[in-house]
């Protein structure tokens, strides 16, 4: 496999991959990915020059406020966006192939089989007129021709593995028979039934209660460990990332601004935006004190500031921040898009 040998192509703007000393097997390698929506008034760039790699077995969290391009990044990897109204550039290398060059048919063979996705709202992701057993079985039969009977047996086994009690019976339930947490378990069962190499989970616990969220996080960690599934976890909840992920990518206004191991970035964030997100968590401020917040808001699409996109909201901004910033290496595993990263010390969640 080509991807396993690593890639030697340094990006013009980004770091030369994140190949550190240890041999990493890159499963996914996103290079200079840009997506723009075509509108009658011209193109609206949504994400710009996204570069990251995900090694096999890694669990990567993508965080940022709404409108930062997290979901678009996830959907683009699976090519789930309507491509006629997009302008795409860059490369998405998965298993030695550039996903952006595959035909619709090749993509369909891959989707759900090698790469699967879980969405935020399990209710709208399930078809209300089919039983959950049918829907899980269908995900399997789409890739492995088999009898209905065997598909059903596999669906029952999958339901059991995600902790649904009495799966033989539950298999014939319709989505409306199940609670929100159970529906999300069904989605996980469906996503994992073909044992994908990569699972993209887009805010899978946001719609759930905190006690159920804890169950789903535990389930996802356990299953991804057991099945050696690589995980991309898109969320706005930094607590969830800390619990489940090994690495965290912070996105802001359609760009990656920081990419680092979770424990590292929580303690010593290097980008002022990541530090701002960490600081605004209510749990960290003294009770009833004023909560720190990031002034202003994410710029609108098509109204991006020149140079550093975070600069209008950044308290550390200098004149040179008006120039475009590159995502560059801070340390072997820590990349940051900030010209001042080496000059400023930012507070993390704990003082060291």
């Amino acid at each position, binding site marked *: 496999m080509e991807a396993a040998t690593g890639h030697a192509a340094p990006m013009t703007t980004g770091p030369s991959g994140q190949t550190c000393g240890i041999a990493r097997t890159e499963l996914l390698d996103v290079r200079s990915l840009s997506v723009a929506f075509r509108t009658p008034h011209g193109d609206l760039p949504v994400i710009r020059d996204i570069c990251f790699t995900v090694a096999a077995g890694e669990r990567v969290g993508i965080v940022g*406020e*709404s409108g930062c391009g997290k979901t678009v990044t996830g959907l683009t990897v699976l090519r789930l966006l309507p491509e006629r109204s997009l302008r795409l550039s860059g490369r998405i290398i998965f298993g030695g192939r550039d996903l952006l060059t595959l035909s619709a048919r090749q993509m369909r063979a891959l989707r759900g089989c090698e790469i699967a996705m879980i969405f935020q709202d399990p209710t709208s992701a399930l078809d209300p007129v089919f039983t959950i057993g049918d829907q899980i079985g269908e995900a399997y039969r789409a890739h492995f021709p088999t009898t209905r009977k065997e598909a059903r047996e596999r669906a029952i086994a999958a339901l059991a593995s995600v902790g649904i009690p009495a799966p033989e019976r539950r298999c014939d339930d319709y989505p409306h028979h199940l*609670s*929100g*947490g*159970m529906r999300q378990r069904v989605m996980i069962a469906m996503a994992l039934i073909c044992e994908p190499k990569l699972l993209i989970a887009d805010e899978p616990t946001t719609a759930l*209660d*905190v*006690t*159920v*969220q*804890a*169950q789903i*996080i*535990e389930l996802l960690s356990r299953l991804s460990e057991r099945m050696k599934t690589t995980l991309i976890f898109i969320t*706005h*909840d*930094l*607590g*969830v*990332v*800390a*619990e489940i992920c090994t690495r965290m990518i912070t996105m802001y206004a359609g760009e990656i601004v920081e990419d680092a191991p*979770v*424990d590292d970035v*929580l*303690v010593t964030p290097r980008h002022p935006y990541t530090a*701002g*997100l*960490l600081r*605004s*968590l*209510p*749990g*960290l*401020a003294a*009770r*009833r*004190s*004023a*909560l*720190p*917040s*990031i002034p202003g*808001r994410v710029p609108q699409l098509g109204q991006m500031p020149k140079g550093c996109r975070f600069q209008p909201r950044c308290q550390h901004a200098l004149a040179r921040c008006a120039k475009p910033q590159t995502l560059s290496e801070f340390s072997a595993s820590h990349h940051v898009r900030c010209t001042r990263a080496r000059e400023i010390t930012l507070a993390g*969640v*704990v003082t060291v």
Partner: protein
Amino acid sequence: MTAISHSTPTTAERPIISVRDLRVLFRTPGGKDPIRAVDGVDFDVQPGETLGIIGESGSGKTSLGRALVSLITPDSGQILHDGLDPTTLRGARFRAHRRDYQIIFQDPSAALDPRMTVLDSVAEPLAIVRAADDAARRREALAMLARVGLPRDLAERYPHQLSGGQKQRVNIARALMLRPKVIVCDEVVAALDVSLRGEILNLFADLQRAFGLTYIFITHDIAVVSHISDRIAVIYLGKLMELGAADAVMGEPLHPYTQALLSAEPLALPAALRPKRRIMLEGEVPNPAAPPSGCRFRTRCPVARPRCASEAPLWREVTPGHSVACHFAEVAGRPQRDAILSTSMQK
């Protein structure tokens, strides 16, 4: 920087809201058992305090909040507003009374009329109570928009031109126009991004000082509730499980449910600093139309015993100002919590 109303108000003051054995039922078609959204709840709210109410979906927290501002008529029990039962009031007296008790909802977009400008929406409460003339109402509305931190040029815009945070500020301005004493805040920051959440919570704290407001802050977010509240109530399946000073409930929770809720909260901490053990609750909130017998939490409780099924625990004050509904809650919460942790570890 600390807030003024930090101290827990003394019981000598007359509560601004008293809730006595409150029940809110929803009848379902087909004559089945009604949904018992709120099922026997007692508590007081003191003037100037912030009472946080935490609960999962289906716990009855929203129904409770709506009943507190007379948007739902209780099926039994009583809510006293400053000693007065609003259900005994009629017509103009009722309308005049309810000005003092306002509510702000979760979804800032759904709460605003899309065809009214921001200024008209904010001035509308004054128009409804026929206060002042048109020009004065406009002036007041503009002043209130400035007070909640909205720039003047947004006044003539429509809700769809505003961001989520700005819309929630408009709703706050609207709720404040009649100078209420109490505001029920129902998941007011749930729809906002984390960076905005801080700004809006700061605004609430600031307005509380400026207007002497009492808040009932309903949320499922433990970090938010613990940040803003003086006292915290925990509700599960229509019943209070625990109520006490925020520090006590967060620091030394007495009820196994509170302990599980706190332990389920994902913490943004490096692995070395995160508690390794977590109380994992099984299953989900049961059907509120047929709640479990005895203690409602027993079906998910890691330390449930036979007595929990046969006998509903009494609401008892374990330490002054800290009440709990659990047969086995002790003053020292820790040993029990460790017991729960060790049982859930074995699974």
